[in-house]
């Protein structure tokens, strides 16, 4: 049985007081006191500017902040008890807060938002990130309007970002999701997105929350659920996404949340993706994806070195994951010097597909399979950076498109490996 009591009594009482709403803004936080004030303000002006007549609520789901983040959120309600706000609103705009125990990756925050959305019968919902410090108030409209006015079920954002930003997105997630699911969603895993009541309820009602598999990387699972469920998906251009500082060590957790989730989803979605041929663009408002071209100093040498070390040291692991020709290919390029080093798109696609198939077969611990991708991804990044060092935005797009087509071309290879097991 599903555990249905994950909402606290106090939160439920707050929800009763909020009552039915048209728009719900979910705001998962954890120690965001520094930025939360401006984010809530952005959200409020977004609602008042874009949806002054709609009933709206801001729901903060906090993962045990120790810096008073939830108090900051609830303190900025627009209602008649605290008429201090200089924003003139027709309605009461509640900001309520609840907290959960557990890690932020557990998906509890998103589950709570979904549950609240269902209980409040919110017509359109968005999740906003407390870390998107450069978010603008019109982001709300951009994410909500397609759902509220045009009947879409999921709105994923596109951003103006550096050409070397989001390399996992451009080199693996976007091409692979596009090739397998046939839908060209640029950003399937983002901290901001909008969704409809229909999609939210369906996702909330699915199995997998209680046993923990619904947790990690839930945003990506959500996007995939929208695709496989035949929901109407669109993209909306938001604006500049600030470069988030990430250490190299962040790569593995990120891979778990994205690639791991994607690989495991392939298993349950087999009946869907195995039938898809080619890919279709999704409706997009605003520009597609804008790339910034500022020069960037990246230590490609180190990336290549980590790749080579990985290939050498992890040979035993790769032997259980990769096919002999692919492994040989990797060993061959690992031995190349800096100048000749080239991790080709085809080899990269084969690598990824073989990883996916091995993941499905659980040849070794699935988590180890995901971890083993990291050095290879670094190698691919090294090549990508080299190829596009002086490339214009169009060239970069062309290269990404080429990679996508490679993923699409080699899809039968994945299917073949997949079926060989059955």
């Amino acid at each position, binding site marked *: 049985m599903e555990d249905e009591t994950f909402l606290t009594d106090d939160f439920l*009482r*707050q929800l*009763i*007081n909020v*009552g*039915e709403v048209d728009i719900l803004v979910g705001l998962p936080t954890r120690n965001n006191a520094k930025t939360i004030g401006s984010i809530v303000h952005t959200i409020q002006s977004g609602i008042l500017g874009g949806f*002054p*007549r709609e*009933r709206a609520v801001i729901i903060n789901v906090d993962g045990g902040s120790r810096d008073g983040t939830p108090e900051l959120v609830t303190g900025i309600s627009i*209602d*008649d*008890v605290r*008429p201090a706000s200089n924003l*003139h*609103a*027709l*309605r*009461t705009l*509640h900001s309520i807060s609840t907290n959960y125990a557990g890690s932020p990756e557990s998906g509890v925050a998103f589950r709570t938002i979904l549950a609240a959305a269902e209980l409040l019968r919110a017509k359109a919902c968005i999740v906003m990130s407390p870390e998107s410090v450069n978010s603008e108030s019109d982001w709300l409209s951009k994410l909500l309007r397609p759902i509220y006015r045009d009947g879409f079920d999921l709105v994923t954002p596109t951003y103006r970002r550096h050409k070397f930003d989001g390399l996992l997105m451009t080199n693996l997630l976007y091409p692979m999701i596009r090739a397998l699911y046939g839908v060209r969603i640029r950003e399937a895993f983002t901290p901001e997105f909008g969704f409809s009541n229909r999609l939210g309820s369906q996702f909330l009602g699915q199995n997998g929350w209680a046993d923990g598999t619904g947790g990690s990387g839930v945003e990506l699972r959500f996007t995939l659920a929208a695709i496989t469920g035949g929901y109407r998906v669109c993209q909306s251009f938001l604006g500049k996404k600030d470069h988030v500082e990430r250490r190299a060590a962040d790569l593995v957790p990120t891979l778990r949340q994205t690639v791991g989730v994607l690989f495991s989803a392939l298993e349950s979605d087999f009946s869907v993706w195995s039938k898809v041929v080619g890919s279709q663009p999704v409706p997009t408002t605003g520009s597609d994806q804008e790339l910034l071209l500022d020069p960037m100093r990246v230590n490609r040498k180190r990336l290549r070195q980590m790749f080579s070390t990985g290939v050498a040291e992890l040979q035993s692991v790769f032997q259980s994951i990769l096919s002999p020709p692919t492994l040989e290919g990797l060993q061959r390029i690992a031995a190349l010097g800096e100048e000749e080093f080239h991790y080709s798109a085809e080899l990269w696609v084969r690598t990824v597909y073989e990883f996916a198939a091995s993941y499905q077969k659980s040849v070794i611990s699935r988590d180890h399979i995901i971890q083993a991708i990291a050095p290879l991804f670094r190698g691919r990044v090294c090549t990508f950076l080299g190829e596009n060092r002086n490339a214009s935005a169009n060239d970069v797009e062309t290269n990404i498109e080429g990679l996508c087509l490679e993923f699409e071309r080699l899809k039968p290879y994945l299917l073949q490996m997949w079926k060989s097991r059955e």
Partner: protein
Amino acid sequence: MPLNKDALWYKDAIIYQVHVRTFYDSNGDGIGDFQGLEQKLDYLQELGINAIWLMPFFPSPLRDDGYDIADYNAVHSSYGTLEDFRKLLESAHERGIRVIIEMVLNHTSDQHPWFQQSRSSQNNPYRDWYVWSDTDTRYKGTRIIFLDTETSNWAWDPTSKSFYWHRFFSHQPDLNYDNPAVREQMWNVMTFWLEMGVDAFRLDAVPYLVEREGTNCENLPETHTILKDLRRKLDEQFTGRMLLAEANQWPADLRPYFGDGDEFHMAFHFPLMPRMFMGLKLEDRKPITEILQQTPEIPPSCQWSLFLRNHDELTLEMVTDMERDYMYDMYAESKTMRLNLGIRRRLASLLNNDRRRIELMNGMLMSLPGTPIIYYGDEIGMGDNILLGDRNGVRTPMQWSGGWNSGFSNAETERLYAPLIQDPVYGYPAVNVLAQRESEHSLLRWMQRIITVRRSTGAFGRGSIEFLYPANHRILAYLRKLGKDVVLVVNNLSSTAQAVELDLRRYKGNIPIEMFGNNMFPRVGDLPYLLTMGPYQFYWFRLRRI
């Protein structure tokens, strides 16, 4: 039931606003008259009201529904004679009903002899009774009120070849209150009626009496001086009389009209009314509580006057642009329903004839701080006729029965001053006094009941108000307190059932007694007091400590 002697009678009053012309025609000429109204006083007494406010009945060309007065010391011949009025006054007083009449201070009709004299030549002694100018550029900062009909506050007079000042229609020239003779004359007019026994004046358009260059010519200190002077004279010469200000202004601008209790006794709370409708539509108490938070304290002898609808459009001057757009979209989809900055519709049709919402709105009218005014016909849920021009759509004949001319008049139907409402929902065969008297569940019966309950405590008329802010914003809850009398009012503005938790810890141990049925509810304890409310439901509880 003779009049009580309480000088603060207006605080406990429930006022019924009626135009003589619209109520009952006793002589079959198609126009209501004083004798007709007198005959219907029993009906009003039965309804439970204790004051009537008569709209202008003076001789007039009737180009602004009588607000264009051509003679202040007489009555319009259509409505009867001065003697008829005197008899009506007596009959009303015998029934404990006070009579409030209109006094239009700001302007006269252009047919008034004073203006005829004034315009006749530049040297006429009456010339200075009005505001004349050689140019139409003075007082530039002044807004135009009747946007739909007027383009300037100045009008050209071809006779005397100069411009005269008018804040309303161009056929209503403004009197010049800088002239002591005008002030003297207007006080004489008021004395005339006060001596006859009139209990109160509704002073029309008071913010506009005086003009000064470089101002917006509204709410000027000079205006207040004149009004205070009138009040002083009233207090010196008469007792138990009342002045009611019509000043469509923000609460903070309205406050000076109460002075230190030495100007007006009462003033209309204009900004509250649209916000009550807005709160109902939004299902959110915020507009209502906000405007009442912004409403300043008034002297103890003074009182707000509240209304849901009146003879004018539902005015949206005292709201923001965003709020006005919202109100238009929600309550006046069709452009024909709009007039100036307002909506020209009646209560029942504004609320889509939803009995629950009509009851809730009346419940708030009767329980918020102030003296309620009921516009004639709204007690039976009459509709309007938006095809009639200007504000005449809400000024159709009173619907007494389903019979000939709705029982209003024996005249041929064509002779009626205005067509009857005929549509299937609001028409007189469906909505009329006779039918509602017969039905126990009718709106009329319900109105009688709520007026009785309202009059059972002084807390509504005279008590203080304290808002409770339950976290559920659909619930508007407040306490009305007068001495030991404590009334808890809880309104559900939502179309759906709601649960609400009220913080009543201060009243721990009290037993809430529901005032319509005098029924007990569970005692107030330490925990938040939980109430479940049906759609648009409201409760009045008397909190009793036993």
